[in-house]
C-alpha cells in the first residue's frame, strides 16, 4: 500500500467516524491495522489477536485460507475485537473501496459493542486478549516441560466442555462448595424464620409439613457437593479435581475464560452482523454522495456488498438476513405497521399499504440493537411475511433414487415451522444444559452430571467423546443422566468402557 493511498484511507476513516456520529452511532478510537490476508485469517481462526497454539485453530485457519484462495482477488473479511480500545484488521491486498467498506462495517460493529447490553458486558473481558497473548508463551513452556501431547490432551478436554455454561452468560456460579452451602443455608433459614414469625396477606404461614420439608433439606444440604447444581462444569472441575496438576488448571482456566468472553457474542451474531452491514451501506452511500469515492470505487463496492449479502442455498447468511431484518423493522415502524390499530385491522390490502407517517423506524432499530438477542429478534420480528420475503427453507439430504447420490432438497418452508426451528437453534446455541449434580457419587468422588432435557437427544458419538474427555480431567468414573426415547437413561464411562443403563 503506497503512501498516497494510506493518506487517503486515513482521511476517509476520519470522515467515516464523523458520518457515523452524525447518524447517531456510538464511536470510540479504533486501531486499524493494514495487514496481509494471512494475518486476518489467523485473527479469525484464533479468536484473539494472539492466542495459544492448538490444532483446532489451525483447522479453522486452513478452512478460511481455502475459502480465501478460492475467492480470488479480494476478500470482504474483516476482523474486529471488542476491546476497551477496539482493534480491527484490514487486508492490505484488498481493493481500496473494499478497505473503506470494511472500515465502515467495523464502525457498525463498534457501535453495537458499545450499545448492546449483552455484548457491552463482554467488554469487561477485555483483559482476555492479554491473557491469551501471555498464554502463548506459557503454554509453549508447558509443552517443553510436560510434553506437547499432554498439553494438547488437556486443551482438547477443556474445549470439550468450555461452552457448558450457565444459561445466564454473566452469572458467576459459586464454585466453592462451602461458600455456596453457607449462602444457601442462610437464605433458607431466613425464609423459614421470616415465615414462622408471621404470615402476610400474600403468603400463608408454612404448614408443618412444609417446615419439615425445609428442615430436611437443610440437613441434607450439609452433605451435598455441590450444594446447588453447577452448570459451569469446567470451572467446577478445575476447582475440585483431585488429579489435575497446577499447570493443567492454568491451561484449563484460560480455555474456560475464553469461552465465557466469547459466548455473549454468539447470542447476537445475526443482529451484530446485520447491524454492521446496515450501517456500512448507509455510510458508503453517504461517501459516494459526498464524492469522496469515485465511479470505479462504486463498482468494487457493489460487487463486494452483493457478494456478502447474496442468498445462500445451503446456509443461513447472517449478513443478508440481518441486513434485511433492520431494513424491514425500519420500514414497518416508519409506516406505523405496529400497535393495536394495525394488529386489529383485517383488511390485507389496507395493511399492505398502511402508512400513518409514524416515522418511528430509526428509534426502533436502535432499540432492537440495544436490547435484543438473536432469539428475541426471531420471536418478535420474524413474521410470516418476513420469512416468506427472505425465502427461508429447511433443506435435507436425501438419496437420488436413480443415481444413489446424495442430493439436497427443500423439506419445509412454512413460516411457522421455520420460525420454530430458528428459535430452537438460537435458544441454546447448540448447547445442551448439563449440570454437575454430585461430585462425590457413590461416596467415591465419582462425577454425576445431569442433562436438563428439553426435547433434544444427544448425539451418541459426541457424547462418548466428551465423557472420555471429562474422565481425563476428573480421573474418576463419570455419569451422565439424560432422556432417550422418553425414558430416563444413565450413561457412564470408567476410563475403559462406556455403559448405558436404561430405566425399566
Amino acid at each position, binding site marked *: 500500500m503506497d503512501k498516497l493511498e494510506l493518506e487517503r*484511507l*486515513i482521511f476517509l476513516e476520519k470522515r467515516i467516524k464523523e458520518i457515523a456520529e452524525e447518524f447517531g452511532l456510538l464511536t470510540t478510537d*479504533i*486501531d*486499524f*491495522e*493494514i495487514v496481509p490476508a494471512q494475518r486476518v485469517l*489467523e485473527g479469525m*481462526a*484464533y479468536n484473539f489477536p494472539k492466542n495459544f*497454539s492448538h*490444532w*483446532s*485453530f*489451525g483447522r*479453522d*485457519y*486452513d*478452512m478460511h485460507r*481455502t*475459502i480465501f484462495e478460492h475467492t480470488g482477488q479480494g476478500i470482504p473479511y474483516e476482523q474486529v475485537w471488542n476491546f476497551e480500545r477496539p482493534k480491527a484488521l*484490514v487486508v*492490505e491486498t484488498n481493493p481500496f473501496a473494499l478497505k473503506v467498506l470494511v472500515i465502515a462495517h467495523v464502525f457498525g460493529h463498534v457501535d453495537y459493542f458499545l450499545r448492546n447490553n449483552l455484548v457491552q458486558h463482554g467488554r469487561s473481558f477485555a483483559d482476555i486478549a492479554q491473557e491469551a497473548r501471555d498464554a502463548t508463551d506459557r503454554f509453549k513452556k508447558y509443552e517443553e516441560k510436560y510434553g506437547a501431547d499432554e498439553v494438547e490432551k488437556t486443551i482438547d478436554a477443556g*474445549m*470439550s*466442555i468450555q*461452552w457448558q455454561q450457565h444459561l445466564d452468560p454473566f452469572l458467576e456460579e459459586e464454585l466453592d462448595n462451602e461458600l455456596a452451602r453457607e449462602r444457601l443455608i442462610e437464605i433458607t433459614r431466613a425464609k423459614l424464620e421470616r415465615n414462622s414469625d408471621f404470615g402476610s396477606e400474600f403468603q400463608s404461614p408454612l404448614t408443618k409439613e412444609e417446615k419439615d420439608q425445609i428442615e430436611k433439606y437443610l440437613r441434607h444440604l450439609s452433605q451435598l457437593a455441590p450444594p446447588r447444581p453447577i452448570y459451569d462444569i469446567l470451572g467446577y472441575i478445575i476447582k475440585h479435581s483431585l488429579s489435575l496438576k497446577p499447570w493443567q488448571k492454568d491451561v484449563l482456566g484460560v480455555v474456560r475464560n475464553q469461552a465465557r468472553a466469547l459466548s455473549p457474542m454468539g447470542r447476537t451474531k445475526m443482529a451484530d452482523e446485520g447491524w454492521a452491514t446496515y450501517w456500512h451501506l448507509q455510510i458508503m452511500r453517504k461517501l459516494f454522495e459526498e464524492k469522496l469515492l469515485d465511479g470505479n470505487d462504486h463498482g468494487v463496492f457493489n460487487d463486494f456488498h452483493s457478494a456478502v449479502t447474496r*442468498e*445462500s*442455498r*445451503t*446456509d*443461513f447468511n447472517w449478513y*443478508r438476513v440481518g441486513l434485511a431484518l433492520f431494513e424491514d423493522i425500519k420500514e414497518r415502524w416508519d409506516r406505523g405497521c405496529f400497535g393495536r390499530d394495525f394488529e386489529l385491522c383485517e383488511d390485507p390490502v389496507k395493511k399492505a399499504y398502511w402508512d400513518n407517517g409514524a416515522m418511528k423506524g430509526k428509534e426502533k432499530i436502535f432499540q432492537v440493537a440495544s436490547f435484543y438477542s438473536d432469539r428475541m429478534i426471531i420471536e418478535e420480528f420474524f413474521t410470516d411475511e418476513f420469512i416468506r420475503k*427472505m*425465502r*427461508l*427453507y*429447511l*433443506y*435435507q*439430504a436425501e438419496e437420488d433414487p436413480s443415481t444413489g447420490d*446424495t*442430493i439436497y432438497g*427443500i423439506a419445509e*418452508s412454512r413460516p411457522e415451522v*421455520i420460525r420454530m426451528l*430458528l428459535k430452537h*437453534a438460537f435458544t441454546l446455541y*447448540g*448447547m*445442551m444444559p*448439563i449440570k454437575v449434580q454430585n461430585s462425590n457419587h457413590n461416596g467415591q468422588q465419582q462425577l454425576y452430571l445431569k442433562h436438563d432435557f428439553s426435547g*433434544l*437427544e444427544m*448425539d451418541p458419538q*459426541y*457424547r462418548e467423546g*466428551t465423557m*472420555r474427555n471429562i474422565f481425563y480431567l476428573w480421573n474418576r468414573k463419570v455419569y451422565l443422566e439424560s432422556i432417550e426415547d422418553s425414558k430416563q437413561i444413565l450413561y457412564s464411562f470408567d476410563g475403559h468402557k462406556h455403559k448405558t443403563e436404561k430405566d425399566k
Partner: protein
Amino acid sequence: MPITIPDMVSEQGKADAKRHRDKQKEVIKNNLPHIIANENIITGKRNKIIKIPVKSLQIPRFRPGQTGDGVGIGQGEGEPGDVIGGRPGSEHGQDIIETEVELEELIDLMLEDLGLPKLEEKQLKTILLELGYKITGIVKSGPWTFLNSRATVREGLKRFWNFLNSLIQETGLSELNCFDALKKSQGDLGDALAMLRNPDFQVTAERVEPFPVFTKDDLRFEKVDPNISYQSQAVIIAMMDVSGSMYDQKKYLARSMLFWLVTFLQRIYEHVEIRFIIHHTQAKIVDEDTFFKTQESGGTYCYTAYELANGLVEEEYPTSQYNVYVWHFSDGEDFDHDRTMGEIKKLFAKKINMLGYGEIEPSEKYNKNLPDSGLMSAIKSEFSTQQVSTPEITMITLKTDPFLGVVIQTKEQLLPALKEFLRKERWTNG
C-alpha cells in the same frame, strides 16, 4: 494514528494447520481396514487420482443428535420437494469442509502403517537392458568417425590465441604482424617466429582473422559407451475362478485385494504389466473388464489357469527379465487337485517371485480353522507348509517355495492380508 501497517509475520496458523492434518492422518490410519475396502476406491478407474474425502476433526462436545450433516436452513427460490443441488457448498459452514486425501498419500500412510520404509530401487530385482550405445562425454582419442568437430575447433581456436599471444610476447611486435606470420606459416609456431625475426618480413594481412590451429592434442572425440539401463519391471498374472460358486461378494473381495496388490506393485516397479486369466473348467486370457464381469456356470478345474500362467511366463515374461507375481483367487473348489499341484510346481521351478493364493470364504466372522477341503487343503497336504495365525488372519507359507496362502472371509481382512504380502522378504529377491 489510528491506521497503521504493522510489521510482522507469523507462522502459527500454518504450524497448527499441519498439526490438524497430521491428526487427520492418524484417524485415517486407524480406519485403514475400512477405508481400503471402500468400494468407491476400488471401482474407480486405475491411474485416476482418487480422492477420499476426510472430514475435518471436531472437538467432541455435548450436542444434539439427529441434526447431523445435510440438514440446515437455506434461502432462495423453491417449493418443498424441489432439489436445490448436490453437496452443500463450503461457504461458511465449517462442518462441511472436507480435506481430500489422494490415493498416493493413502498408500504412503499404509506403507508407514505396515512399517515399510520408503522403497528403494536397489532392493529390487533389476533387469539389465542393453539399448545399444550412447555418447557419454568427450575424450582426446578415438576413431575418426567419432571426431567431435565443434569441440575440436573450439580447442583449435584456443590454441590460435595461445600462439598469437606467445608470438607477441616473444617478439614485441604488433598483433597484426604476429597474426600475419602465423597465417603464412599455417599455424607452425617455429616457422612464424623465424618469419617475424626476418627483417624482410612484409605484413600483408589487413586485420586479425582467427583460425583454428591444431596439434594432435587438440583433437576431440566422442566418448561412446554401451547404453545399459537397470530397470525394475514386473508382471502380475491375476487369475480368478469365475465358476458358478463365485458370487458377487466373493468377487468383490478378490477384486479389492487385487486392486491394492497392483497399486502397491506399481509403486515398487517402474513397469508393471497385469494379465488376467479367468477359469472355470477351461481358462482363458481376458481383459480387465471381462475379468471382473464374467460369470460362468459349472465346475472348476484350477489347473487350466495355472497351465496358462506357465505358458505366459515361458513365452512372454521370462523370469530372467521380469519379476513375476501370480495371484489366484478362488473359493477353493477344484475337481483335479493333482494336475493343479503339478502346474504349481512347474511355476515354482521357473523361479517366479511369488505365488499368492487367496481363498475367498465370505463369512460373518473370522474363523481360525482353515477349510479341510478345497485347494488350500490340497496345497497343505502336497507341500510342507507352515501355518501362521494372527488375531486377524490365518495364512500358510511353504518352506521351500515363495508362496502365500490366505483365507479371506471379511472386508476387514484385506489389510492384514496385504500386510503379509508386503513383508519385505516376500517381494524382494533376497
